[in-house]
C-alpha cells in the first residue's frame, strides 16, 4: 500500500505545526441536515393537515454531547445552591405558610405540563422531516425531562425541609381528587399531545410556552421571593433558560408550514382555539394562585396579564409572525375581560370545595380584603361579603360543622363544570363572563361556560367526553371519597386539605367531615 497524498500532507502539516486540534459542536452540527435520506415509507406516524418543509433549520445548533454539557453546568449551579447555602439557612422552611401551600399545586401542576411536553415534542420529533427541525424538538424532549425532574425536586425539597410536607409529599396521588385537576390535564396534558401534531405544537409552544411561561414561570418567582421562597426562583429561573429554545421551536414550526396552503386556511383557527383553551384555565388559576395563595402581593394579576399576555404576546410575539399570516386570536378580547374577575370567581368555588384539595387554603384577611378592593373596585360587595358570612359561620373551625359548599346548596347556587375546559363555574355568582349553556349528546348532558369552548365541542364532541368530578362522585359522601383517594395525613385521620393556615387553628379530620354528611350531586341531572 502506498502512502497516499493525504498522509504525506498530514505528516507535513504536523512537521510545520504541532498545535493540538479538536472539533467543536458547530463543526459537527453543520452536517446534521444531511443525516436523513429518502425512502418510500418515510413519513410521520402522527399526521397533520399541514406540511412541514423539508429544509427547516433550527436556531440552537446543538449536538447531543454539547447539550449535555450546557445543561449539566446549569444543574451544578442550581443543585449547588439548593443543597448548600439554602439548606443551611433553612430556606425551605422560612416561607410564608400560604405560599408553602401554593407551591404544592404550582410545582406539581407545572410538572404535569413538563411531563406531557416530553411526549408532545416526541411527537413533533416524529412529525418533522428536516433533521435540524427534529434536532430542535429532540433537545426539547430532553429539556422537558429536565423540567419534570426539577418541578418534582421543588416538592421533594419542601417535603424534606418545609413546614408542612403533606401534599408536597404525595401530590402525584392526591392531585386527582379536586376540581382543578381535570382542567389542568386539558391544558397541560392532553392539549399538548392529542391532536394534529402542528395543532399540538401551537398549543404547547406558541401559546403554552411563548404566552404563559412568562406569567407562569417568571412571575411565580417574584411572588415566591416576596413570600420568603428562594427555592422556587432557584429552580424555575433555571427552567426558564431552556424555554427560549422552546419558543424558537414554536416559531420554527410556523415558519416550516408558512408556505403550505393549509396554513392560510387553518392556522389562525387552530391558534385561536389553542389560545382560548390555555387562557381559559391559566387566567383564573394563576391569578388565584398568586393573589389568594400569598401573603405579600407583587402586583395585581390583571396588570401582569395585560403586560405579558395582551401586549407582549398578543402584540409583539404574534406581530413577529404576522409576515407568515398569523393574526392575534379573535378571542383575545374576551380573554382580557376574564383576566379581571375570573380568578376571583374561581377562588370562591375552590374555597367552597377545600376538602378536596391537597393543600391548605386561606380566606382573605381584612388587610387582603382592602388590597383586593383597592385593585378590583367592587370586590368586597360581591366576594368579600360572602367570605365574611362564611367566617362568621365558623368555616375554619372543625367544630362548626359548616362547609361553604353547603352555603352554595342552601342558596341554590349551582356549580357546573365546563365540559371542554373542565373549569368549574357558578352562573349565578360569576362576576366574570361565564354563562350556562347545556347540550345533550350521546345520551348525556354537557354544560359549557363560554362560546369559544362551546364551539370547539360542537365541531368535535368526540374529543371532549371526559366525565367531571360531579359525575364521578355522584351520590357519594365527601369524607368517603377523600379517604378512598388518600387525602389524609400520615396520622391516618387528619385531612391534608384545610380551610386555613393559622398556626394555632385546629385541623379538620375525616370524622369532622363525615359528621356533616355532604353528598355529591350532579347539577346537570336536575336540569
Amino acid at each position: 500500500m502506498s502512502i497516499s497524498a493525504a498522509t504525506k500532507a498530514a505528516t507535513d502539516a504536523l512537521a510545520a505545526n504541532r498545535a493540538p486540534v479538536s472539533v467543536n459542536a458547530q463543526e459537527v452540527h453543520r452536517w446534521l441536515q444531511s443525516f436523513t435520506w429518502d425512502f418510500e415509507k418515510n413519513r410521520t406516524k402522527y399526521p397533520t393537515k399541514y406540511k412541514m418543509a423539508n429544509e427547516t433549520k433550527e436556531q440552537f445548533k446543538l449536538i447531543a454531547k454539547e447539550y449535555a454539557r450546557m445543561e449539566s453546568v446549569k444543574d451544578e449551579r442550581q443543585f449547588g445552591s439548593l443543597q448548600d447555602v439554602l439548606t443551611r439557612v433553612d430556606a425551605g422552611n422560612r416561607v410564608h405558610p400560604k405560599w408553602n401551600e401554593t407551591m404544592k399545586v404550582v410545582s406539581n401542576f407545572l410538572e404535569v405540563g413538563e411531563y406531557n411536553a416530553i411526549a408532545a415534542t416526541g411527537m413533533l420529533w416524529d412529525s418533522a422531516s428536516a433533521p435540524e427541525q427534529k434536532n430542535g424538538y429532540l433537545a426539547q424532549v430532553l429539556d422537558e425531562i429536565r423540567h419534570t425532574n426539577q418541578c418534582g425536586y421543588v416538592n421533594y425539597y419542601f417535603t424534606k425541609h418545609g413546614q408542612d410536607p403533606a401534599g408536597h409529599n404525595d401530590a402525584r396521588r392526591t392531585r386527582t381528587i379536586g376540581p382543578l385537576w381535570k382542567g389542568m390535564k386539558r391544558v397541560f396534558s392532553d392539549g399538548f399531545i392529542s391532536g394534529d401534531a402542528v395543532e399540538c405544537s401551537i398549543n404547547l409552544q406558541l401559546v403554552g410556552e411563548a404566552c404563559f411561561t412568562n406569567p407562569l414561570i417568571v412571575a411565580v418567582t417574584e411572588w415566591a421571593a416576596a413570600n420568603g421562597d428562594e427555592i422556587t426562583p432557584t429552580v424555575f429561573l433555571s427552567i426558564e433558560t431552556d424555554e427560549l429554545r422552546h419558543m424558537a421551536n414554536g416559531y420554527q414550526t410556523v415558519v416550516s408550514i408558512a408556505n403550505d396552503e393549509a396554513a392560510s386556511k387553518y392556522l389562525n383557527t387552530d391558534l385561536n382555539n389553542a389560545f382560548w383553551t390555555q387562557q381559559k384555565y391559566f387566567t383564573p388559576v394563576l391569578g388565584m394562585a398568586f393573589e389568594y395563595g400569598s401573603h405579600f402581593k407583587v402586583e395585581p394579576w390583571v396588570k401582569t396579564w395585560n403586560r405579558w399576555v395582551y401586549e407582549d404576546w398578543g402584540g409583539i410575539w404574534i406581530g413577529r409572525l404576522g409576515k407568515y399570516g398569523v393574526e392575534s386570536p379573535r378571542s383575545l378580547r374576551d380573554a382580557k375581560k376574564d383576566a379581571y374577575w375570573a380568578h376571583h370567581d374561581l377562588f370562591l368555588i375552590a374555597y367552597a370545595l377545600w376538602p378536596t384539595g391537597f393543600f391548605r387554603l386561606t380566606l382573605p384577611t381584612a388587610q387582603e380584603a382592602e388590597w383586593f378592593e383597592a385593585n378590583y373596585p367592587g370586590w368586597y360587595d360581591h366576594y368579600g361579603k360572602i367570605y365574611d358570612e362564611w367566617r362568621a359561620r365558623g368555616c375554619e373551625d372543625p367544630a362548626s360543622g359548616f362547609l361553604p359548599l353547603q352555603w352554595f346548596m342552601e342558596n341554590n347556587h349551582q356549580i357546573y363544570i365546563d365540559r371542554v375546559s373542565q373549569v368549574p363555574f357558578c352562573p349565578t355568582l360569576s362576576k366574570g363572563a361565564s354563562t350556562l349553556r347545556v347540550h345533550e349528546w350521546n345520551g348525556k348532558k354537557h354544560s359549557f361556560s363560554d362560546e369559544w369552548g362551546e364551539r370547539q365541542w360542537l365541531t368535535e364532541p368526540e374529543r371532549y367526553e371526559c366525565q367531571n368530578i360531579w359525575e364521578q362522585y355522584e351520590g357519594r359522601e365527601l369524607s368517603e371519597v377523600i379517604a378512598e383517594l388518600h387525602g389524609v395525613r400520615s396520622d391516618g385521620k387528619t385531612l391534608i386539605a384545610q380551610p386555613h393556615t393559622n398556626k394555632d387553628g385546629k385541623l379538620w379530620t375525616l370524622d369532622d367531615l363525615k359528621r356533616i354528611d355532604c353528598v355529591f350531586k350532579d347539577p346537570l341531572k336536575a336540569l
Partner: protein
Amino acid sequence: MSIQIQQGKRGLTDPDTARVILDAIPAEALDSQRKMNYFVKPRGRRLSEYEVLTVYAQPTPDWIPGGLDWGDWTQKFHGGRPSWGNETTELHSTDWHKHRDPAKRWHAPYVKDKAEEWRYTDRFLLAYSEEGQVRSIDPFWRDEILNLYLGAYIFNEYGLFNAHSAPSRDTLGDTLRFSIAMIGFDKVDNAQMFQMERVFLSKLAPGFPESTDAPKAEWTKGSIFKGAREAVQDIWQATYDWNESIWSAHIVYDALFGQFVRREFFLRVASHFGDTLTPFFINQTQLYFSQTKGITSDIFFEEGLANDAEFGDYNRRILRAWTDKWLPRTTRALQDFLGIYAKLPVIAGVTDKVSVEQALNRVFDDWKIDFADKVSYKFDKAAIIKTVLQGMK
C-alpha cells in the same frame, strides 16, 4: 406592615418581611412524613432519588395498569383516539410504572455523565492530534473503509435514533418514557460522534473528506449496507407498536448487527491498520450499548414484561414472534455486510473466514445468553451463521 411588597424586597432577607413570615410559621412541622412519594414501591431496599423524581410523574388513569388517576382523557385526537391507550402495544403489563433504569438516571445524572464524556473526548482529541498519532493510520483503511463504511454507518445510527420518537410519545409509563428518550438520544449521539471523527480526520489529514455525500451514497445505493438499510427503515417507519420498535431496534437488530459491525469489525480490524482513533469512538458507543442493555433488559426481562406476574407467558410468546420477524432481516443485514471483507486483504486471525466465523459466534453466543434465552427463544446458530457467511465472497 403593608402586604404590598416594595419592589425587589425579598421575604428571606428583608428584615420586616421576614419577621411577618417567621411569625406565621408553625413551631413544628404539621406532618412527619418527609419522604416524597412514600407510596411508591422501591426497586431496591430504599426509594432512590431517581424513583422519587420520576415514578408517577405521568398522570395515568387506572384503566391503564399501574395508573393512579381516574376517568377519561380530557382531550383526544380527532375522531376520539385516546391520548395514551392500552391498544398502542400488543404487550400487556400489570403495571406500566414498574420499569427502572438500573443506573438510576434521571435528567441530571444522565447529562452529567455525557458532559464528562464530551469533555474527555475534547481532551483526547487534543492530545491525539498533538502527538501525531494520525500518522499511523493506514491510508487505505482511512480513505476507503473509514470514509465510506464508517461514514455510512452514521445513517444506521441516525435511523435507529429516529425509531425512538414515536415510542417516546406513545409509551405508557414515566420511567419508560425517560429511558426510551435517553437510549434514543445516545443513538443520535453515536451518529454525531462518528461524523465528528470524520471532521477531525479532515483537519489532520488534508484531503480526507468531511462531507457526508460519499458515505450517504454508499448507505442508500451500495450493497454492503443494503440489508441494514432495509431493516433500519422498517424499524423506524414501518413499526407502530412502541414495544416492538424497542425490541426490534435494540434486542434483535442492534444486539446482533450493531454489535458485529462495531465491536467485531471496526474495533478489531482498526487496530490492525494502525487506527487508534476509531476504537476511541467505538468504545463510547459500546458504553452506551451496555447502558442501553441495562434498560432494555429491565423493560423486557428481569422484573419486566417477559416475567410479568399475570401476562409473562403471553408476552414471551409475542416477543418470540417479533424475534421471528426481525431475526431474518438482521441476518440479511449481516450477510450483506460481510461483503466488506472482499475489500480487505486476507489477514490471518483478523479478516480470514475462520476469524469472521469466530466473531459471529461471539456475537450470537452473547445474544443467546443476554436476550434469546430470557424468552426461551430457540434458534439454530450454526445455520444462521452459515447463511451469514455466504455474504463473504
